């Protein structure tokens, strides 16, 4: 079954034809060419597909594309739209919180969504917030530090 949906992606309104059973992740990657959100497990376990839906972090692999109708989606591609790196991105670069980079878009979007609701988190709160974003390379410590550092600038 095909649906024509209209929704916002990175502040732009788009209209797409999507199949019922296709996920938002598939639509973003294959129909809009927004490949920043990654396929890591398609089960909501790894967080590599994290995007913001109406400002809140969700696993795009667990949202049907058709459900995006009327909503606002933000992906990693939007984070430095001003031309300058977002404070979170700057912190990640400065602190070497990136290795293979595959988990990075999901981490950044999760952090962005989280800081919008909790602008002054403790280390434990950041650890808990990121628990749905798996990283196999960095050991997390620099990612946590970067989020805490960026929180001060974002607030």
């Amino acid at each position: 079954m095909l649906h024509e949906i209209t929704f916002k992606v990175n502040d732009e309104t788009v209209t797409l034809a999507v199949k019922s059973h296709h996920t938002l992740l598939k639509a973003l990657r294959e129909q809009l060419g927004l490949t920043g959100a990654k396929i890591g497990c398609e089960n909501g376990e790894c967080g590599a597909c994290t995007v913001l839906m109406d400002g809140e972090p969700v696993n795009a692999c667990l949202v049907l594309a058709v459900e995006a109708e009327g909503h606002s989606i933000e992906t990693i591609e939007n984070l430095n739209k001003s031309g300058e790196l977002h404070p979170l991105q700057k912190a990640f670069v400065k602190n070497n919180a990136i290795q293979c980079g595959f988990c990075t878009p999901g981490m950044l979007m999760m952090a962005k969504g989280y800081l919008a609701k909790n602008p002054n988190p403790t280390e434990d709160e950041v650890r808990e917030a990121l628990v749905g974003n798996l990283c196999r390379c960095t050991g997390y410590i620099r990612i946590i530090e970067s989020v805490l550092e960026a929180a001060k600038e974002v607030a």
Partner: protein
Amino acid sequence: MTTECVTVGKSVTRIDAAEKVTGSVQYVDDLPFGPSLLYGKLLHSPHAHALIKHLDATKALALPGVKAVVSGKDTPKPIGLYLKDRTIFPIDRVRYVGEVVAGVVATSEEIAEKALELIEVDYELLPAVFDPYLAAQPDAPLLHPDLGKYEVVNFVFPEPGTNVSEHFKLRKGDVDAAWPKCTAIIEDTFSLPQIQHVPIEPHIAVARWDKDNQVTLWAASQSPFAQRDLIAQSLDIPHGDLRVIAPYVGGGFGGKAGISIEANVVVMARAVKGTPVKVRMTREEEFLSTNVRQSLVGKYKIGVDGEGNLTAMQVEYYFGGGSSNEYGTNIARAAGYSCTGPYDCPNVKGDSRCVYTNTQIGSAMRGFGMPEIHWGLEQIMDRLADQIGMDRVEFRKRNCVRTGDTIVTGMKMPAIDLIKCIDLAAKGIGWGKKEAPTGPNKLRGKGIAIMWKAPAMPPNPGSSAIIRFNEDATANVFVGGQELGQGTFTVMAQIAAETLGIPYESIRMTVNPIDTRYSPYEWQTVASRLTWSMGNAVKAAAEDARFKILDTVAKYWKEDIKDLDIKNGVVVSYKSEREQPLKKMVVYGLPNENYEGWQGGPIVGSGKFMPTYVTNLDPDTGQGTRAVVHYTVGAQAVDLEVDTETGIVEVLKIVSAYDVGKAINPDLVLTQIEGGAVHGMSSAFEGYIYDEKGKMLNHSLVDYKIATSMDAPRKIQGEIVESAVEDGPYGARGVGEHVMVQTAPAMANAIADALGIRFNHLPLSAEKIYLAMLEKGIV
């Protein structure tokens, strides 16, 4: 040059940071292939061991949208790195639950999925064996009756008629005569299950076999050149007609080294010539059907004399190599020639075997045999120390290898400083200071473990590099080694910049993707070898380019080349103090007076590195002049707590010290240390769980759990020791694997300190620990 380095030794910003942090990096799955792209799905064996009597794809082929089905009849020629023991698709038998049996190509993933259900395979079940020790016994079911006929490299010794694909023998001194001299002897068995790399990017490959028989393979790959070589041989494609393109890898850890599903995808593409075919492993398939770390059953007997000196060691390592040991044989070999761990012992008897088992293919994984054997070694060392009343750190300092020691294979130990590593780790963790738990219902303990590892390679693995200048004096550096996240592109840029005498910012690593058509040859991105080997090639290429520049300018100025140097992108003469910027001259050359002709021209430098001194080892004794190129050593100390109500372990602090020769980028070394510590910690709790028929039960992230942000220790302290390696660029050698080798035994040692309980068999779990505390009466 005795001047201080400008770029090398500095923690410059990663060269790939900006593109990764903006999400603009393209991994294989992000590459566009257009609307004609077809999708492939793989059929997996439901049986651990069975003959394939008949495979019928008629119904699958009749499904609308299905373009092809391929299987063993399409792949008669064997494939393999060290031992050609399998065909791309199995022909006559399957050897593990999950083995790839056939491939379907269709216009959509859903159709391909549906087609799998329509392929009919008749199997005849055979008895299976899963435990490597049992599989090595004479009465075990035979997985490879034709083992004696397989093509094998001259340094691997399979035992036809058995399941043993490699048997490395180490005989040094006389252990039988040495036991009576020992005051304390510990004999025990340790084991580890299979674990998986769990890269966040699953395996993926796209292949296109053009109608003119040019073949292109895009793969998430640590080994584009090795994959080209192996696939070319097995499918009779001329090397020059097979092109492997490998963009950034989303985590490798060895799992994307050698060959996994890439050859299967090429065969599927051949069936639909002219159209690209993509196969992306689901996370479940990643667990079920790609490579794993081998399981191990290790039997140890170690003795010390009255003064606490290691006197005799006898070890038997049975590695569960899985259904195919084409790469895994080298793991048993490496564990064989390094079987003592980083210790000096005059009498050693080691037998390290790679054994076929009806489980996933045991291939390269971070540590390559070292984490497996150190699990038992480091716990026994603790127990020996305890038995003779010596401090566990003192025991290690007394017995560890030192520079110049004649080590277990008869080789002289190159320069390392393991003592310093031990001291740093012990000091960092507050060794000897018993610290109170951080809260009620917790028991706290500290543990230490040391390690060594050499790059486990064939004797002649080569690296090469090309450097080419642009008009504005930026320089393109071409290499064939892969960025997995370990930071190799950054380190190469630093080496190139330092050697050339130009700023780091002027380097352009021309490496995304690595492309066997354009990139210079690199054996594989494995073995923690790139900083050293590819770094040497880059340095050689830079020296070549540097010489060509200085030669041109020296002739131009009529000066002695020995008086010239390049500093910050400018050629300078120490004698005349003249200066010549590199801009333009590196492409256009330099004009003679009055423009009466020109000198010089485009500067291109090339370089290679291949070790020339690795020798054979005696097949009966494992002795030889030079077994390996070098060793990296390290020490790791862990401070942890056990919750006495649940058994859950919380790691408070890890202190790691590694001797890297030279830290080209110190902060990147620290990031490896941190990532490795968490990976090592996680590995202690990971393990494949099978039912009695060999079917994996926890093949998803729901039940195969890896460390999360909440598991990471509060603090990881990294310390860098630098004992320059003789033939490394600026003295550097690798560290990417070493950082996780001994974390599991360090934790076991800390748990023993906290609870007085030892665990011989991984994985650890809260349940295991709690039930052990209950049995001991602690709770």
